[in-house]
Structure formats: structure tokens, C-alpha cells
């Protein structure tokens, strides 16, 4: 037999001025199942709560309804009070007679009548409430960082410094990412390698960090606190434990025609190589598409010269499986292909290059040893024209609709560096808008114009064509309302950036949501910007949206803070208001899993009794309560009604509907 207690709050005069609270309590007293009804000035006060606790004990209440302000305000308060009195906290319902009644109505009679209905509705619901217990799930105290760029490195270091084990999975042969390719960084112009490589070394030396380079995430199972990740360790044909990074193999390798990806294919490298001097791990890798031994079976020179016997042409991909409590996605970006933009002539002219290619041409470790020479003839370019927004802010379908955010600043940086190093060079920049929000950013850009005399032209380039070995850049100068043609030696395209394409697969594995531009979606754009909606998955760097190095590092550290906050817990309390299937009714049709935004639903084969001693095996849904967030999408999709939501069951909601409609 249900014993319901009802408590009507006056909220001073907030409720009592328009709702006859005493009358409400009086009317409700005679509702079936209600054994106690009271009213009080401030139910949420210490005394009010005491009243609730006392009544629960004295009247042996099985459920309580508080007629007061919005449950968004004090539901938690009254749940705690109930719990303190020995009643399950989920046996509490709040009827919102303030925001949804007394505050919006003027007429006392009308408001009182509505308050009664609202309280009745809550009673109807609470009668069907079931005691719920928050579950617990253990936390594996190890984090996975996917991507070894500056975002991944920073996140890993911060997490490891807090004392937790971290694995970095990097698909390339070395960590470092895009930042390793960059020459100088804005707005301070310090050398990228000088600030990045010490961090890479820190990672390698940190006892809590395990770098899994040349590896990819293959499969992810599990949920927050308890991910089970399968990692493919790609065959590098060099034993990582033996190679000392002496580079003798690189010298001796007869196949030297492989394009050097690290230098944006501007020069070549041997078939066995270490991507760059400061690579971590400093271990060689063989490119099987270039290796003569692997293509023809003859050669084996590197093996012969390797002093430690590290070369193994027979090496195969291997797989490892590890458990993690949290995952940081830091997969980074790549510049878009500019093939769609014929007008800039990238594919027809060697001297039309992208900005990342220019970074390598200006880098001391690059193909030209840091001397700016144009690719076609190795001459010093005298006139250089930059074109901004190549493929950014483009809704025509050729490019990306968003602003890539970093191009304005790096173009100013390039222009400035060139003017500084080669004062006899003329530098022009075609721009649509120069966007420089950031500390010391606009000052930096103005310096390029005012101090270094870079010629900024408001307008866009319509065509780049070759005339007698000169690149003719035709564009508009909107301020002067004229069309101009600049005879240039080198044209640099500030190509838009896009998320590294492999992020799609990762997002699918993690059931992390992704937007139409392949950027991972954050849980809340303002308040939870580093968390994915999938619990336990965090986002750092450009995989979440275009951003520069300082922002990336901030986000990575924010991720680390979130991860540490998760990993310090031994157990996670789970929301008890989760979906649960009635297995006896479940068809196993997969419709619910199709709509679950969290991937909380899996299927298991179970044996069911049919009667008469017979059994059958059926496929039924199984909800992981640690992952389910309780939205209820699955409950409506389920054709048999097998799926229901605790705390908001179909029966509860229907009884509310009935109570409201019963006039």
C-alpha cells in the first residue's frame, strides 16, 4: 500500500500570494494514497526539510511530493532530505507550482485549481516511481592520447605529470605532428623546433608515457572509465628496441627516390629513413614501396650495414590491446588539396606553392637549408605574392565554408620573415579580411605592414598564369577600385585546413559525434568545449575546430585537467535514470542502437524459457548504464515497448497525462 506525503510550499508570498496553499493541501489530503499533507512557508529551508524528514519517519511514507518551485531548483535538495530520512531519493517528485503556476497566473481561484492538478499529476507519477540506485563502475587509471602532435604531447605530459600512465598512439613514424614542420611561430617568431622538440624529448623520457609510434587505433570497446582499445602497430621493418638512430642505413640505402613527406614532397629521401633529425623515437622505418629488397628481393644493404641487426624485412603488423579510463582525441589537421582551384595554377606552375611548403623552404632543416629559393629554377624570388583564403570561407563547394583561423597570422609571419631576411624582395598579400583576434596578434600584423613594408591588397586573385617565365597574378584592388596584375616570382597559397581524414574512423569507433566538416563536436560549445558528448572522450586541437598553437596547447591542458579529474576517481557513480530493456519483450531488431547517441546499446544472445521445458536463444538489447545518459530516444523507437526509461517510464508519463486530462 502506497503512503504518499505531500508538502506544499508557500515560498514566502511567491506561491502563497496567488495559490491558496492551505486549500491545496486540504484538497490533496483526500487523494487516494495520500496519508499526509502539509504546508509550510519555506520547504527548502532547514526547518522545511526537517518537516519532510520527520513526516517520512512518522508516517512511514513510501513516496513524497513537494509542491514548490521548479524541480530544476530544489529537486536535489529534497532528494537529499528524503535519503537522510531513509527514503530512496528517487521516490521524490516535485510539482512546479511556482514558475509554472503562481508566477504566471493572477487569478487566485484559477491558480489554486491548477496547483491542485499539478500536485495530483506529481502524485500520479510518484506512485509509479521505483527506488533507484546509482550504479558504480571502476576507473582504469590510464589514458590514451590519439595523435602525437603538439596537442597530444601537451595533454600526455600534463596527465603523466599528475601521475597517471599515458599512451600516445601516433600514426606516423615520429611524434611532433604539424608543428614539427613549421619554421617559426607567431606572434613571437620563436623557432618552432626549439620549443617543440624539448617537449618531444620530455615525452620520450617520461616514465609514465609510452609512445606507440607508427600505430593506429583499430577498435574501441567499452565506455568511460573502462575503454578496451585494440592498437595496430604497423610493421616498420626495423626493430624499435635495437635501432640506435645512427642513420648509417640512410646513407647506404641505394633507393633515394622516395618523396620526403616531411618536406611536403619538395625533395626526396631514402627508402629507409628517419623523418627528421629530432624524431622521437629516433628509429628508422622502411618504406616498402621504395625498398629494393622488398620489391625485388635483392639488395639488403641496410641490413648488412646495420651494426645492431635491427633490420627485419619480414616484420608484420602486430596488435596490442590495452585498457584506458579516458581517451583524448588529438588527430590534428592537414591543408586541403588545392586541386579544385585551377585559377591559381598550383598544378601547372612549380612556383605556386602552399604555405606549408613555404614553411619547409624557409626551414633550416628543409630542402633548401633555409635559403628561400624557388622550386622551379632555384633562384631567389624577388617578387612574392601571397593569396589568402584559398578554399576557406568558400560555400561554392570547392572549399570549406569555415574560416581556417590561422592563415591570416601565418601569412603575416611569412611576409615579415621574408622581408626581414631578404629586404630586396617585394611582398604582396591579397586578402579579403585580416583576422587577428588574439593577444599581440594585431600588433604583429601591423608590424608586417608598418615596419616591414608588406603590401596588403584588399581584394582577391582571379587568375594566376605564366607569361615568359613570370607568374602573372591578376586580382582586384577593391580600395582603389582597380584590377591589377602583379608580375611575381613565387605565389604562396594560404590553403584552408581540414581535420585529418582518419578522424572519421576514430569518431565512428568512439561513437563521438562529428559535424559536416569532419570536426569533432564538443559536448557544449561554451560550457563543455573540450569534452565529446561521449563520456570519457576529450578533444584537443584542430580535430575539434581550427585553432593556432597557443589555443591548441590550452585546450590540450584543459583536456588533461578533465582526464585527471576522471582518473583520480576510483569509481564512477552512474546516473540511475537510464534505459533498460525488458528482455522478454525485446525483438533484438537494433532500432534502439541506431538512435542511441552514445553507443550505449549492444546485443547479446540469451536463452529464454518457452514453457513446456523448451528454450530458445534470442538476440536482445543490453544497455550499459555507465554510458546511457537517459535521453529516451530508444524507448520511442522500440516497436515492442521493451525499452523503457527509469524515472521517466512510459507508465509514469501516461499516468501524468491522465492526471492532467482528468478534469
Amino acid at each position, binding site marked *: 500500500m502506497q503512503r504518499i506525503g505531500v508538502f506544499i510550499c508557500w515560498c514566502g508570498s511567491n506561491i502563497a500570494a496567488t495559490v491558496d496553499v492551505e486549500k491545496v493541501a486540504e484538497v490533496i489530503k483526500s487523494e487516494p494514497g495520500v496519508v499526509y499533507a502539509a504546508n509550510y512557508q519555506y520547504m527548502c529551508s532547514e526547518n522545511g526539510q526537517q518537516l519532510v524528514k520527520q513526516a517520512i519517519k512518522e508516517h512511514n511514507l513510501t513516496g513524497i511530493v513537494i509542491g514548490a518551485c521548479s524541480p530544476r531548483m530544489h529537486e536535489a535538495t529534497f532528494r537529499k532530505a528524503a535519503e537522510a530520512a531513509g527514503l530512496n531519493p528517487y521516490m521524490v517528485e516535485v510539482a512546479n507550482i511556482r514558475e509554472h503556476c503562481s508566477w504566471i497566473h493572477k487569478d487566485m481561484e484559477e491558480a489554486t485549481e491548477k496547483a491542485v492538478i499539478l500536485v495530483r499529476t506529481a502524485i500520479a507519477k510518484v506512485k509509479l516511481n521505483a527506488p533507484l540506485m546509482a550504479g558504480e563502475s571502476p576507473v582504469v587509471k590510464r589514458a590514451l592520447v590519439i595523435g602525437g602532435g603538439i596537442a597530444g604531447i601537451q595533454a600526455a605530459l600534463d596527465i603523466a605529470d599528475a601521475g597517471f600512465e599515458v599512451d600516445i598512439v601516433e600514426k606516423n613514424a615520429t611524434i611532433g605532428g604539424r608543428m614539427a614542420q613549421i619554421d617559426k611561430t607567431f606572434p613571437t617568431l620563436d623557432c618552432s623546433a626549439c620549443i617543440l622538440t624539448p617537449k618531444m624529448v620530455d615525452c620520450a623520457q617520461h616514465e609514465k608515457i609510452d609512445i606507440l609510434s607508427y600505430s593506429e587505433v583499430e577498435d574501441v570497446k567499452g565506455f568511460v572509465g573502462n575503454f578496451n582499445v585494440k592498437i595496430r602497430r604497423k610493421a616498420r621493418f626495423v626493430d624499435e628496441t635495437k635501432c640506435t638512430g645512427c642513420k648509417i642505413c640512410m646513407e647506404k640505402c641505394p633507393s633515394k627516390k622516395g618523396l620526403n613527406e616531411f618536406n611536403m614532397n619538395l625533395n626526396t629521401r631514402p627508402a629507409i629513413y628517419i623523418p627528421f633529425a629530432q624524431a622521437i623515437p629516433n628509429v628508422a622505418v622502411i618504406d616498402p614501396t621504395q625498398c629494393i629488397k622488398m620489391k625485388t628481393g635483392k639488395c639488403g644493404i641496410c641490413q648488412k650495414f646495420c651494426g645492431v641487426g635491427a633490420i627485419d624485412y619480414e616484420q608484420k603488423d602486430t596488435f596490442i590491446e590495452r585498457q584506458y579510463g579516458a581517451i583524448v582525441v588529438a588527430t590534428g589537421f592537414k591543408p586541403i588539396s588545392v586541386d579544385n582551384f585551377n585559377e591559381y595554377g598550383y598544378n601547372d606552375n612549380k612556383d605556386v606553392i602552399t604555405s606549408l611548403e613555404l614553411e619547409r623552404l624557409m626551414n633550416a632543416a628543409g630542402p633548401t637549408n633555409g635559403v628561400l629559393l624557388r622550386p622551379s629554377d632555384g633562384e631567389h624570388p624577388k617578387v612574392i605574392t601571397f593569396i589568402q583564403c584559398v578554399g576557406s570561407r*568558400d560555400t*561554392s563547394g570547392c572549399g570549406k565554408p569555415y574560416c581556417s583561423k590561422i592563415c591570416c597570422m601565418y601569412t603575416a609571419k611569412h611576409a615579415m620573415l621574408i622581408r626581414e631576411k631578404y629586404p630586396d624582395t617585394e611582398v604582396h598579400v591579397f586578402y579579403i579580411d585580416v583576422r587577428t583576434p588574439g593577444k599581440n596578434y594585431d600588433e604583429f600584423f601591423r608590424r608586417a605592414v608598418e615596419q616591414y613594408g608588406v603590401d596588403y591588397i584588399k581584394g582577391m586573385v582571379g587568375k594566376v598564369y605564366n607569361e615568359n617565365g613570370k607568374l602573372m597574378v591578376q586580382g582586384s584592388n577593391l580600395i582603389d577600385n582597380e584590377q591589377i596584375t602583379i608580375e611575381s616570382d613565387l605565389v604562396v597559397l594560404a590553403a584552408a585546413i581540414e581535420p585529418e581524414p582518419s578522424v572519421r574512423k576514430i569518431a565512428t569507433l568512439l561513437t563521438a559525434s562529428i559535424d559536416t566538416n569532419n570536426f569533432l563536436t564538443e559536448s557544449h560549445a561554451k560550457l563543455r568545449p573540450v569534452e565529446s558528448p561521449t563520456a570519457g572522450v576529450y578533444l584537443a586541437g584542430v580535430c575539434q575546430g581550427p585553432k593556432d598553437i597557443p589555443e591548441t596547447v590550452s585546450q590540450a591542458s584543459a583536456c588533461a585537467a578533465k582526464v585527471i579529474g576522471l582518473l583520480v576517481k576510483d569509481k564512477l557513480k552512474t546516473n540511475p535514470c537510464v534505459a533498460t530493456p525488458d528482455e522478454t519483450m525485446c525483438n533484438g531488431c537494433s532500432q534502439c542502437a541506431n538512435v542511441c547517441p552514445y553507443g550505449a546499446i549492444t546485443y547479446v544472445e540469451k536463452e529464454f524459457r518457452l514453457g513446456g521445458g523448451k528454450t530458445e536463444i534470442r538476440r536482445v538489447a543490453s544497455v550499459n548504464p555507465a554510458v546511457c545518459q537517459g535521453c529516451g530516444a530508444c524507448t520511442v523507437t522500440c516497436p515492442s515497448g521493451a525499452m523503457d526509461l527509469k524515472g521517466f517510464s512510459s507508465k509514469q508519463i501516461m499516468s501524468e497525462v491522465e492526471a492532467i486530462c482528468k478534469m
Partner: protein
Amino acid sequence: MTKQERMDNLNRLSGTDVKKCMKCGKCSGRCPAFHDMDIKPHQFVSMLGQGKIEELLACDAIWNCLSCMACVERCPRGVAPASVVEAVRDTVVRAQGKNGLKAEDIPPIVDEFIPQQLLVSAYRKYNK
């Protein structure tokens, strides 16, 4: 017709949304007739947006535009400046109430050097 109606009319005729323009000037950057146009392609878009209808209807540029559609091809925002030019021109031609170029006028002027594009363009330009 009120100014607003004429603006709406031009917008409708052009079939393009001038509000999508982000004022990059790429259209004018490529326009082969740029130097012969008193109002430049990007200005057409901007002026229609601002409702400077009188100036547009009185300009010479509508006759100098080659209708080559390079600006349409280049626009990163899917705006069609040439369509705005065409809308203005059509409005003028219609107001004059006569066809400037009839189908039978064409054969006599055709020779092997005239590009097809020119004929198409001329027909677009002088016909209502």
C-alpha cells in the same frame, strides 16, 4: 514602382542572393572587361544590396560586360555578379521595349572568326 519593388524585382530577376557576398573582390579580380566597365562586377553586387538602382540602370557597364561568366565561375560564395549585370540590363532593355537583336540579324554578321560565346553573349545582351 517603388524603389523597394524595383530592388526586389532586380533581385528576383538575377536569381542570386547578394547578401551572400563577402566582398572579396574575386569577381573583379578575374573580369576580362574590367577596364571597360564603369561599374565593376563587385560593385554591381554591392550597389544592388544598397539599393543604388538609378546608378545601375544608367551605367555603361551593362553593355560592356562580356557575359563570359568568369565572375560566376570564380565566386567562392555562390553569388553570380554577371546575373546581376544581366538583370539590370534586362530591366533597361525591357523598358526600351524593343529587341535590339533579332534572330535574323545574326547570320549576316557571322564569320569564321566570331566566337560562339560572343554570339550567345550578344543575343543575351540585346534581346529582351
